[in-house]
């Protein structure tokens, strides 16, 4: 446990001295701000239009949660697909390239501890990033009257999604010493998680149902709508655990080759 925390602490400090992490953070928040601005403006336009037409009844249906936060979170999930591989690509690949991998693997530390430490650090950084994006719900709460519970569920979904992406990114990074290869393969895996159910849309037997279960957007949308279902949380946690397990195997494989 101490080894895990030692590695996590060192890695987390590393994120705050690396330009890549700041670029990821900036791109994520800038785009989030832009989406928020756009969605809010559309919302405002529509409210004014409805008022001009005097249909006050309709105003009851205008909802900040479904019109602003819901699409914002969906947009951010796509932004994460693009920026998370950039954040995680160096985690193992760079150590292999610079030779520090030799230090890690000859230290009296288990490979599981190495993987856990690196995962905790990357997940912490990502959660900080998502916590900063909580500024948008705050703005809405000051000037409007959104449902806090639903927004909370949505952000929980985004956090789970991001942590899953971290685990997938670590796995890709553990396969290679080339950061570009790591980034592109984790990008591919993340996209696959989004489209994996497509062949099953036409229906079919049990095997197709499994593909449908693996479809990430379904689980994400349910939570963003404010429904916290255990099966959705289990989905994100299982993908994370499987990816971390595969990472551990991949790091450990240096010892059997």
């Amino acid at each position, binding site marked *: 446990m*101490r080894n895990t925390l030692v590695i996590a602490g*060192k890695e987390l400090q*590393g994120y705050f001295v690396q330009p890549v992490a700041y670029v990821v953070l900036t791109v994520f928040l800038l785009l989030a701000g832009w989406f928020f601005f756009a969605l809010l403006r559309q919302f405002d336009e529509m409210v004014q239009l409805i008022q001009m037409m005097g249909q006050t009844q309709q105003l009851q249906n205008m909802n900040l949660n479904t019109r602003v936060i819901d699409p914002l979170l969906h947009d951010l999930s796509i932004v994460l697909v693009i920026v998370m591989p950039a954040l995680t690509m160096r985690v193992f690949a760079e150590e292999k390239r610079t030779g520090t991998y*030799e230090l890690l693997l000859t*230290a009296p530390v*288990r490979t599981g501890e190495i993987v856990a430490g690196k995962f905790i650090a990357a997940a912490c950084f990502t959660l900080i990033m998502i916590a900063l994006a909580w500024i948008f719900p705050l703005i809405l709460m000051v000037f409007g009257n959104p449902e806090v519970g639903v927004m909370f569920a949505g952000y929980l979904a985004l956090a789970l999604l991001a942590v899953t992406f971290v685990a997938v990114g670590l796995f890709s990074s553990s396969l290679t010493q080339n950061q570009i290869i790591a980034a592109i393969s984790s990008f591919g895996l993340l996209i696959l998680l989004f489209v994996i159910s497509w062949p099953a849309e036409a229906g079919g037997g049990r095997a197709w149902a499994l593909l449908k279960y693996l479809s990430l957007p379904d689980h994400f949308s349910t939570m963003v709508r404010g429904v916290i279902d255990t099966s959705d949380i289990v989905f994100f946690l299982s993908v994370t655990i499987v990816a971390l397990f595969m990472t551990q195997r991949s790091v450990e494989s*240096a*010892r*059997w080759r």
Partner: protein
Amino acid sequence: MIEVKDLSKSYGNFVAVQNISFKAESGQILGFLGPNGAGKTTTMRIITGYMPASSGTVVIDGLDIFTNSLEARRRIGYLPEIPPLYSDMRIEAYLRFVAKLRNVKRAAVESAVDHVMEVCGLSSMAGRICGQLSKGYRQRVGVAQALIHDPPVLVLDEPTIGLDPRQIHEIRELIRSLAGKRTIVLSTHILPEVSQICDRVVIINDGRLVLEEQLSEIPAGTSLEEVFLQAIAKETNETTLSAEETLEEVGAGHSN
């Protein structure tokens, strides 16, 4: 202290190391010699548990590096061929990290860091960023991280490579001063280095052991160069040419 037995390692069809056996007793400095590409780094990586052997065993202080890996690794300090520095960390922070990674007790971390910085002449450099260090200082930080947990076994892969003559002298002095209670294995292709600091020499060529001897047993008047070249020439006649090349390299090393 270190016992290597019938060690072989192949990568696919390429055999890097073949049936190497040697021993280093406690307190000895063992020079691991061989031309470039002879399998020195591979052997050292296996000894330190970085990669497994295809066959054969390595026993450190009675512990097998493969089956009892964590305990065995605890006893080793290792300087790889390229010093394993994190380029965005400061020297002090880096050494503190390695100390914790090497299971130095929490209360002893600061004193261990101060101690190795002093021993390796880094005290005035504590705040410098590893990525901006010169080759010589990178090497010193590499030695410092290998020493930080006061290991009974030190494995140094070409510790003086790429250093200027004064730095070579300093590192050699440092290694000599570290001996005594420690067992040190150091690889090099600079012969005078071995005669200056080692007690025992192991020569490998083309992945095979060609000589294992106490330096004191080498007859007076015979230089290590002759022993080395003879040992390698005996192997196969074809390798004589590359041995001559090695001699030139040795000459260059000597003039340092």
